[in-house]
């Protein structure tokens, strides 16, 4: 017993020592960050400080001038990030032509009567100055003033709002996010005008200082979820983030899984739909992809368009998608299993024609399938990176490689070409690229299992995949919900796409705080309003 105790003690000591070192490091870090570096009243001193910081930065501009020919002042900005015409017209012009004789010039006077800029923020420390300058806002420093003015004149080259390439729709809004965070937030705000739409900002990346915004609708999203997302984001200590995938990989519940546990989208309407279900979105400056958490597997199989079409059409499309999900995962392995182990399952005529076309093939079915599937994947990958000019050439060659030429050369049989082509198409019916990719990847182990144990092997593979998916969680929400654990009420959005007037409640796992989505009697009723209806009045 004593030994055990001692061991415990030692362990505790070690732990605490580690903690102390860690605390010291953290304190040092905090000191570096938090030490206030106030601007002084002396303009030259301030300029010297900033010039030292921006040493060897040729894109920074220090424009020194005199207000009304007397008071020294300086405007600091980064060339290309600020709107120069605006600076000339609304800052330099009125200030340089100033003729107030007061010494020193009162700050309020400049703010209220001279600067014709709508967004002005006072800055007091050098750190704040740098933040604004790097963000594109010119900073105006005036002699004898210990505060500067950050002018909201940031303006840089942006891509215009376009339809997202990866998520096009036939019916639905055609706007997509751009690389500019401000534009993206404005797109969201245009859809949700309620002030309950909250946007919390933070900076991630020691060097990139990338702005990341958590957005949610207060009163719908659960507080615990918001806190969890914030905590996971604050944990990130990294030199820089260039895409939301960096965030995705750093906040996932299970980083080893092939399945995406975070939804990424370029479409504002999908983000808003998520927000209305009590989810939280993460937007990042510099990428058009927003993240939505938490998600379940079935929500990766939905598109926004499911809700923009008539519900019967959407239900049928959904079932088609589920079917092709299975096809993309299982078809090649079923081909292998049936040809290798269970030939009796095929109708005789089909069996004979397959056997006839396989007569010339020197490989067993397993090798044949693996070979052609790998070739298909390679063609797909190459197709992504091809320059447009070379594209048509490669697609012709590709059609030959997986096609008639392969059959004539005796490398693959005709039914197999069908299988490979169908599988390839099937995986693209899954709306989320990452989810589709996970399934495409998993079909290779499935082929191997089918080659060794037939249908039994396929079943083993499926059970392993299901077991893995049943263990997964996305921000606490079971990945397979509402199928497992069963949430009967939500099946209307999985097995069907129920008519919109049936969606009276939000998903219970994300929207518990505010479960009611709409009034109870939303079913259209032609008699409503002329007194014939027996139903009560609708409305929230």
């Amino acid at each position, binding site marked *: 017993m004593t030994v055990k105790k001692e061991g415990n003690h030692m362990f505790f000591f070690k732990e605490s020592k580690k903690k102390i070192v860690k605390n010291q490091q953290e304190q040092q870090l905090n000191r570096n960050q938090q030490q206030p570096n106030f601007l002084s009243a002396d303009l030259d001193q301030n300029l010297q400080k900033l010039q030292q910081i921006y040493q060897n930065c040729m894109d920074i501009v220090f424009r020194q001038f005199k207000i009304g020919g007397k008071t020294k002042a300086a405007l600091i900005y980064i060339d290309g990030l600020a709107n120069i015409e605006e600076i000339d017209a609304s800052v330099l012009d009125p200030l340089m032509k100033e003729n107030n004789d007061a010494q020193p010039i009162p700050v309020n006077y400049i703010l209220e009567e001279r600067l014709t800029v709508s967004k002005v923020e006072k800055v007091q420390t050098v750190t704040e100055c740098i933040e604004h300058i790097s963000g594109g806002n010119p900073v105006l420093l005036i002699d004898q003033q210990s505060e500067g003015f950050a002018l909201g004149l940031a303006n840089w080259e942006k891509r215009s709002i376009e339809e997202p390439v990866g998520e096009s729709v036939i019916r639905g809004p055609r706007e997509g996010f751009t690389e500019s965070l401000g534009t993206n937030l404005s797109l969201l705000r245009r859809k949700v005008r309620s002030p309950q739409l909250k946007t919390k900002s933070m900076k991630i990346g020691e060097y990139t200082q990338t702005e990341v915004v958590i957005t949610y609708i207060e009163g719908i999203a659960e507080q615990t979820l918001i806190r969890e997302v914030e905590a996971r984001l604050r944990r990130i200590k990294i030199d820089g983030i260039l895409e939301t995938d960096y965030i995705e990989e750093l906040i996932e519940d299970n980083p080893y899984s092939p399945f995406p546990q975070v939804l990424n989208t370029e479409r504002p309407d999908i983000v808003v739909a998520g927000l209305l279900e009590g989810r939280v979105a993460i937007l990042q400056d510099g990428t058009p992809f927003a993240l939505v958490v938490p998600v379940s597997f079935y929500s990766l199989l939905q598109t926004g368009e499911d809700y923009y079409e008539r519900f019967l059409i959407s239900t049928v499309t959904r079932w088609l998608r589920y079917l092709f999900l299975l096809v993309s995962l299982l078809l090649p392995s079923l081909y292998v299993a049936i040809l290798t*182990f269970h030939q009796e399952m095929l109708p005789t005529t089909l069996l004979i024609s397959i056997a006839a076309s396989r007569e010339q093939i020197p490989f067993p079915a397993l090798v044949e399938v693996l070979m052609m599937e790998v070739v298909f994947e390679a063609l797909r990958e190459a197709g992504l990176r091809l320059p447009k000019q070379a594209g048509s050439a490669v697609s012709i060659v590709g059609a030959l490689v997986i096609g008639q030429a392969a059959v004539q050369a005796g490398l693959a049989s005709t039914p197999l070409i069908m299988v490979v082509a169908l599988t390839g198409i099937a995986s693209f019916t899954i709306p989320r690229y990452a989810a589709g990719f996970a399934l495409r990847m998993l079909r290779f182990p499935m082929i191997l299992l089918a080659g060794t144990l037939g249908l039994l092997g396929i079943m083993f593979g499926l059970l392993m995949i299901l077991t893995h998916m049943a263990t997964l969680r996305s921000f606490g929400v079971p990945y397979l919900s509402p199928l497992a654990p069963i949430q009967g009420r939500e099946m209307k959005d999985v097995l069907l796409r129920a008519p919109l007037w049936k969606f009276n409640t939000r998903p219970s796992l994300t929207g518990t705080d505010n479960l009611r989505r709409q009034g109870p009697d939303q079913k259209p009723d032609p008699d409503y309003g002329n007194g014939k209806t027996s139903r009560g009045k609708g409305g929230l």
Partner: protein
Amino acid sequence: MMEKGKISTAQMGIMMYPTIIATAILIVPAITARHAKQDMWLSPFWASLIGFLIVYIAIQLHQLYPQKTLIEYSEEILGKFLGKVVGLVFLFFYLHTSGIIIREYGEFVVGNFLLHTPLVFVMGSMILVCSFAVRSGVEVIARLAEIIVPVVIILILANIALLIPDMEVENIFPIMGKGIMPSLRGAIIPQGWFAEFLLIAFLLPYVADHHKGKKWGMISVTTVMLTLSFINIAVLFVLGGITSRFIYPAFSAVRYISIADFLEHIEAVVMSLWVAGVFVKIAVFYYALVLGTAQWLNLSDYRLIVFPIGFLLLLFAVWSASDLVELTHFLGHTSPFYRISIQLGIPLILLFVAKWRKRASHQKVTQQG
């Protein structure tokens, strides 16, 4: 608590369904038919009485010791030493039974579908797949059951529906032509399967809404009973008097399915979906065994022993019988008494002792007070 997951009673009920059905549709219909003849569809009703009784006992024990599993409270009821002995008996029983289940599955697959694949490989790969589920805990097994059970039920119903053209209803007559006895004798074997409901004693401590335990336990027994009865009726209608001559009558019946010269020879599909049901069955047994062993050994985590016990299971599966004939003989003759004595007898004793102890301590308290 060793297991942090929580399941609902409905999930527990759903888990138990394939846990009984999966192997009960293999050899059992043949053995039942041997004893009960055309009354074989009645036998599941009698057999299910044992199921109801055991669910009742398990719930009673659970109410006395709400946070504990069978292995834990037998120690509390019988004292340290006797309790450990009883725990060991249970663990050995579950090890042996799981071994037999795996062997049944292996014999079936190798005998009918993968004629050239080594039995050990077929059984070992199943144990491996199950061990991943067991490692993930009771929540995951429950979720898997929720996905698999609807598939199994649809499979059974679809097969029965597809067999309708081959059915001859006269096969059922005369009903109880020789009285009630044949169907009662036919129930002796299936009741061994219904006795497996004792497994809920391992699941109940991890159920979030205890008070519904009885309800869902009973629903589960009832659905199992109805399913088995339906299968027996279907088999009887299709195969008639020769049912008992088949080893696996239900699967032999499936071979009769032939619709429009296209939908035929679907045994392989049926087999692979049935394997999903067996997967749940083995996973539940395996989980109870691993959890019980960890509690018996006072371990802090059961995940450590999942793979070692998996290996042991494979050995027991190999050792449990030398061939299918011996296995069938064991299942048809010795096993019902073996199963009933451990899964009904010991819990019954435990319940009596626990009740008696409770009363004794209660009297003591009132005397002192």
